[in-house]
């Protein structure tokens, strides 16, 4: 590194005054590109708005129906985040519990896999019987669908402690609790924060599914009623809002992951 620093001031050619960073710019360009293709494709095919609206028509709908869209977006964000927070707490707890011992891990893992295989949409009617329609089933569906990846990742982090590390500490008289606190839990944190990105996306799936089937509010409900009125641009507007919320929350989780477990991203940090 030092050699490069000493050489460049002499040998470096004058940098061009303006240089486009294509990598930084590409997410924007690709998104714009997608909308352009969509617009042109729909116009050329001549499909009516009630089948497949153009993006301009969708944006029009967003402006036109901004008040209900905003209200329902907040509702969906609220149920999703609430379910997600419950999933974090429960997922961490269950993950630590499962990873604690090989016996518990072996015993509970098949049950968890079986539970995870159940389509969560099938649980919504049961939740409605228990809690009525509205916010509660949406929150619970978001929770149920998103806690599994958290559990699996935390448990995996705990279960894969290097035996040498464990030997070194046990030879010093460490108790199981010591090993968990000093090694197991910090070690499982990258797995945990990594799983949050998956979990938040799933939480949106859960809350929207539940809102669509059994709710009077939220983007899922809004899209369902828009669809029954053949207001297809509004359906697409709802999809677009979901995508925006999903990207925002994913980016937030990715940022949190990077902040909390920078040591696990050492290859990128070292440069």
């Amino acid at each position, binding site marked *: 590194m030092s050699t490069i620093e000493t050489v460049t001031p002499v040998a470096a050619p004058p940098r061009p005054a303006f240089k486009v960073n294509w990598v930084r710019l590409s997410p924007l360009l690709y998104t714009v590109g997608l909308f352009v293709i969509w617009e042109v494709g729909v116009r050329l095919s001549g499909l009516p708005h009630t089948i497949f609206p153009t993006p301009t028509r969708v944006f029009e709908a967003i402006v036109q129906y901004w008040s209900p869209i905003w209200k329902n977006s907040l509702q969906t964000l609220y149920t999703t985040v609430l379910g997600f927070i419950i999933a974090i707490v429960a997922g961490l707890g269950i993950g630590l519990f499962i990873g604690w011992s090989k016996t518990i891990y072996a015993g509970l893992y098949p049950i968890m896999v079986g539970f995870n295989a159940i389509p969560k949409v099938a649980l919504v009617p049961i939740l409605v019987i228990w809690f009525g329609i509205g916010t509660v089933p949406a929150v619970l569906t978001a929770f149920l669908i998103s806690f599994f990846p958290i559990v699996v990742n935390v448990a995996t982090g705990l279960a894969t402690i*290097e035996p*040498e*590390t464990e*030997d*070194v*500490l*046990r*030879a*010093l*008289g*460490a108790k199981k609790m*010591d090993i968990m606190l*000093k*090694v197991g839990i*910090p*070690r499982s*944190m990258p797995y945990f924060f990594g799983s949050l990105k998956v979990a938040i996306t799933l939480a949106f799936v859960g809350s929207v599914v539940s809102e669509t089937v059994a709710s009077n509010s939220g983007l899922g409900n809004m899209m369902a009623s828009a669809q029954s009125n053949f207001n297809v641009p509004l359906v697409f507007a709802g999809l677009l809002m979901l995508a925006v919320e999903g990207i925002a929350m994913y980016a937030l989780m990715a940022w949190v992951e990077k902040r909390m*477990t920078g*040591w*696990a991203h*050492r290859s990128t940090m*070292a440069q």
Partner: protein
Amino acid sequence: MATPLVSIENVDMRYGGPDGTLAVSGLNLKIERGEFVAVVGPSGCGKSTLMKLTTGLHIPQSGVVIVANSQVTKPVSIVGMAFQNPTMLPWRTTLENILLPLEIVEKHRHRLRAHKAEYVAKAERLLETVGLKGFGDKFPWQLSGGMQQRANLCRALIHEPELLMLDEPFGALDAFTREELWCVIRDLHASQDVTIVLVTHDLRESVFLADKVVVMSARPGRVISEHVVPFERPRQLELLYEPAFNEMVQKLHGEIATARAAA
């Protein structure tokens, strides 16, 4: 003569139930206080089992292991261990890694918070001894393999263990780094009141460092011979090229080859 620090008498150790593999059988070994013992032998001869027996990570099915005048029935906590894999925790700095044993060992864990500065100073002295002065605030993954292994030695020594167990600590290093670290270990042994057991495949390493070289048989492992190393201390690296040194290495090599063939 004083009682030995470690005394292993007629120990059998079998893994995986009554029909499992017999790792060591009829193992007898005495290690005096302050002694530097190297254990060599064909692979799979139970060297690592010997380490785990001595540290109390395994309790033998038959026979007795006595460390510091008491029979081993649980981890003994007067030992420091270092393996071939440095196993530094990547989320802690090198200094924090070295202080880790102090957070575990009963004698220190309650004092650590109040006497932090004292312990940090001690860790930094150790770092200096192994040639890592000023690297304490680096993360382990910012260090080279040889530097990580030096830090690993510091971690094994920070709680002033009476017994230091080294399981092929230099196995993964290049030849020059390895020789450098031989000298580090040699100086540590000379300057500190510590008993060292070194498990190794490298016969030159064993003869260069140890007072006594113990040769183990193929599985089930037992001690087939003990050789006192006659060379005077302090030993210099030039010793590696002396005929008497190579003669001894060759003799050990022959013994292990015979032990392998017998298996």
